[in-house]
């Protein structure tokens, strides 16, 4: 099943490219929807039958689907498998891709060429699912990189049509920074291999590389920096606002909803279990940078004038929470990070959909140009935006809360070998960060949705929520509420983390 959902989109993308361009954009989107829908079904079938199966230790094996030698001379294996950490993320990926394809049925970037866009989305899906299911460090690296070129194309071709130079720069910065980071990560992997003699994650997890200094520390640092670029952690986040702001709607959704998770997933999957001692050494610094990210991201949001950039910066803050959760190395913190991963994917995906919808209607994402009083002009979209903002600022009862809460709980009670006082300081600062988060989202709502309708004439052709938008966004809204009121849905999966 796993292999099927990996290969299916890839083959489908190939097929889509090989057919001549005569097939219409609608048909291509429908085709993409069907394929990604199948993948979604498949990924849901991966969902564990009974909870609490997870291999962070030697006691349980992850559900391995495939394990064959790939390049024996380099010690690389083609080893795929899933466990409760990866399955929710895979489902999230499949869901968001499906929704993006569905969205493309009606709403596509102005540049056109939807056929290629759909194909690229499918390739991205393969890469991301591959990363989430890779159990070999090199395979992880490979899948990690698969995503880059398609995403680069998506930003470079379908990006903001007002600013060709800007979107090119954004795409290049994105891809180059990530590649540099992942090259460093690869170095870290190789150091791990030199010490441990294997690249297999399962083996490495059951017999981790001990020692918090010397080569393990260097390896951990390299891996952490590589993943931090992807996360992205302050101060390596500089690629993110541009990339998100310039990307087309579906690109932003996937970028924020899925791609950012690769970094945090890598930390949880590789850094923490494989290099436990070295990770403990760097954890306070990771936590510090994450905390700075939370505050800096929120502060930057407060001064943004572009709605997509604002949401992008908000991702910096949210990913900071996830980083902080990981750095606590505690059960609560790690679970919080995992939960926040999913929640952020749903909520920020929704936010970018909404921002895209607003941008499409006004042909700009600049707050001042869009004007205010969206409540009057686009009441439904504005209401959904408010909802998404509330969810994103971590309102209890919605999905965003539990991740942040568990992260803070983890910071209150970090792993015993970490300096507790430091993490208490992080917790307090992060807590204040949540207030700042609320502040900028309220500012967004205030500047965008509220205001005197008389002074803000409605844009021409501005139609409120269309049917396709409702259909694509409904699952995200539903899941946001569902996970908000029933966090156990996910938390129960991570039995013995």
């Amino acid at each position, binding site marked *: 099943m796993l292999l099927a959902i990996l290969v299916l989109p890839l083959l489908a993308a190939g097929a889509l490219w090989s057919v001549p361009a005569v097939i219409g954009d609608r048909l291509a989107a429908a085709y993409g929807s069907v394929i990604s829908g199948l993948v979604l079904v498949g990924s849901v079938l991966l969902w564990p039958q009974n909870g609490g199966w997870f291999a962070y230790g030697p006691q349980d094996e992850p559900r391995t689907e495939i394990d064959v030698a790939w390049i024996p001379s380099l010690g690389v294996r083609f080893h795929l498998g899933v466990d409760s950490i990866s399955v929710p993320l895979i489902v999230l990926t499949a869901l968001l891709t499906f929704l993006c394809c569905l969205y493309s049925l009606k709403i596509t970037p102005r540049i056109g060429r939807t056929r290629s866009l759909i194909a690229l989305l499918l390739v991205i899906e393969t890469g991301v699912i591959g990363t989430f299911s890779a159990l070999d460090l090199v395979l992880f690296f490979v899948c990690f990189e698969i995503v880059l070129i398609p995403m680069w194309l998506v930003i470079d071709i379908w990006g903001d049509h007002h600013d060709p130079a800007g979107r090119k720069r954004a795409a290049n910065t994105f891809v180059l920074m990530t590649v540099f980071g992942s090259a460093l990560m690869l170095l870290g992997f190789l150091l791990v291999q030199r010490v441990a003699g294997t690249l297999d994650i399962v083996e490495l997890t059951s017999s981790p590389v001990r020692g918090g200094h010397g080569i393990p520390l260097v390896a951990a640092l390299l891996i952490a920096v590589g993943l931090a670029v992807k996360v992205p952690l302050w101060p390596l986040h500089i690629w993110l606002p541009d990339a998100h702001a310039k990307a087309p709607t579906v690109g932003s959704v996937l970028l924020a909803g899925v791609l950012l998770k690769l970094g945090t997933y890598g930390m949880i999957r590789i850094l923490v279990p494989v290099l436990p001692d070295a990770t403990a050494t760097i954890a306070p610094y990771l936590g510090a940078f994450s905390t700075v990210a939370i505050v800096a991201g929120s502060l930057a949001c407060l001064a943004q004038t572009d709605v997509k950039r604002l949401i992008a910066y908000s991702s910096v803050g949210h990913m900071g929470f996830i980083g902080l959760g990981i750095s606590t190395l505690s059960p609560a913190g790690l679970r919080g990070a995992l939960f926040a991963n999913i929640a952020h994917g749903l909520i920020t995906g929704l936010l970018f959909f909404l921002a895209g919808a607003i941008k499409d209607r006004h042909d700009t994402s600049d707050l001042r140009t869009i004007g205010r009083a969206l409540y009057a002009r686009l009441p439904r979209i504005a209401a959904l935006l408010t909802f998404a903002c509330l969810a994103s600022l971590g309102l209890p*009862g919605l999905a965003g809360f539990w991740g942040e809460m568990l992260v803070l709980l983890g910071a209150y009670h970090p792993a015993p070998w970490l300096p507790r006082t430091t993490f208490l300081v992080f917790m307090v600062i992060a807590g204040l960060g949540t207030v700042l988060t609320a502040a900028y989202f309220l500012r967004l709502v205030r500047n965008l949705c509220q205001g005197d309708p008389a002074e803000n004439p409605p844009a021409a052709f501005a139609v409120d929520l269309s049917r396709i938008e409702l259909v694509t966004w409904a699952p995200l809204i539903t899941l946001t509420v569902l996970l908000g009121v029933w966090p156990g849905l996910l938390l129960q999966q991570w039995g013995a983390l």
Partner: protein
Amino acid sequence: MIATVWRVAGVGFSLLILLFAALLYGATPDQYAFMNSQVGDLTIGFAVRTDDLTVLLLAVVGVIATCVQVYSLGYLHQRPASYHALVALFTAAMVTVVISDSLFFLLIGWEVMGACSYLLIGHYWERRDARSGAVKAFLMTRFADVGFLFGIFVLGLGAHTFRISEIDPARISPGVLTTGTLLLLVGVVGKSAQVPLQTWLPDAMPGPSPVSALIHAATMVAAGVFLIARLYTVFSASETTLTVLAIVACVTMLFAALCASAAIEVKRVLAWSTVSQLAIMFSALSLGTADGRHAALFHLVTHAAFKGLLFLCAGVLLHQVGSAALVVLRRYTRRGKSRKALQVTFLTMTVGLAALAGVPGFAGFFSKDTVIEAAWEQAHDGSAVGWVVLLSVCLTAALTAFYCVRLWLWTFFRTPALAGGIGAFEDGDAAADLDEPDSSKLRDAPWVMLAPLVLLAVAAIALGYADGVHLNWVIGLISTALVLLGALPAYSLWRRGADPRPLLLEREFGADPAYHGLVVVPVRWLAKLTVAGDRDVIGAYVRAVGRTGTLASQGFRRMQTGNVQTYLTAAVIGVVALAVLAGVIGS
């Protein structure tokens, strides 16, 4: 259509709450946990419970919510669907807080209330003051809730459970207990708008009046009192927390009462009075005795009735007159016009103000006396807290009487000293009073609005006797004297047409500008700094790398002169350099 559905649903939901309260009345206390999940060695999940406190609060919430929903049918014509839905959600959130037995479940209700209050205060989002008031309300309570969340962590981890019924103060180390309760107290202070987080509540007044009634009478602000009552065993186990609570409460009640005395808008007066009255409840709770808790809850219930009533009355004024500012209302007082036109409103508001002021016979009188009595007993036992509470409650009682009478007189009665009356609220515009407003269309509100008023007015009287009258006559006399002490100056000032408002009070002790200068401005600066830093520091590095690459590229291109002998020279130099370099690196 949708609006109608939500209207019906709103009213129905409130009635449902009442029904539940009725059903649960007298039932044995019970708890039920659900949807739990294990996180490490902690259990995170939900739980509900029923006990007397739940039933009491459910009843209060149910009644007030029903009144508000019904009242809103007549009051609100703008965007009713979202309004009714949000009020229902608001109520539901309060119900969640009330029935919850899990700290996290409670937190959900607690913060959803914050969000709903934000949305409802910003209901008239066209208005600037509504927008900023809403944001302010949310952010201040959010800030406090961070403390609340940390308090949950401290207490929960200290007690190894997040179930309220399982938290046993005896098993928590004192330090943790104090820290936890103090942090929880931060949340309570924020939610109930106590000093120093008081400024959001008066600014929340641009919201629709029924919402104000809901917030002030039954939901949001009362949640703080409820929470301490719910966790009373825990709070009373920590001496420090109680002392802090007492200090906060005493400062707040005086502070707010003073502010109320200088406010020139009906709703703002009422808002400050709420703060003050809540502080009285907190002061009762801070005594740490069962009597104190009882007194606080009693006051909570009566306060719910008369404060809900007062806000709904203010709503009528707003609805029928168009404004609740004293200067506007003044114009309708000629020949008792407003009294006659708004007869029911006048009467019920009189009842409400009397109850608030603690006029003997009205509910507020009894409940306040219970508080004083509890404080007295405590003070009698030699507790300093008791004395402080006693004194400040007494002082507050007098102040309350003062601003109630002031409000009543200035709203409904024409001052004998006419010119001074004008000058009291509107400087120098003598013609304003002569400009007779068109009061011919002024008539009382429709029955859907009046019925809740009457109901609540009855309650504002009757609830005083619901607890069984066991009045300490001494205290009763003293408090009556205090009421008089407060009422007489107000009357005398009114007679003279003077309304002295010290600048300090009118500016509400300058808390708002101070917060603005201390928090908002620096944060804005920091935000600008961050963006500039991103652009000019971090971004500059990235750009510099790119630029360096380009420059280097151009440089290498420049070196490619096409002259083969340059190449050869470079190569030979390279040989020499390599020899030297390898020697250096190798050794």
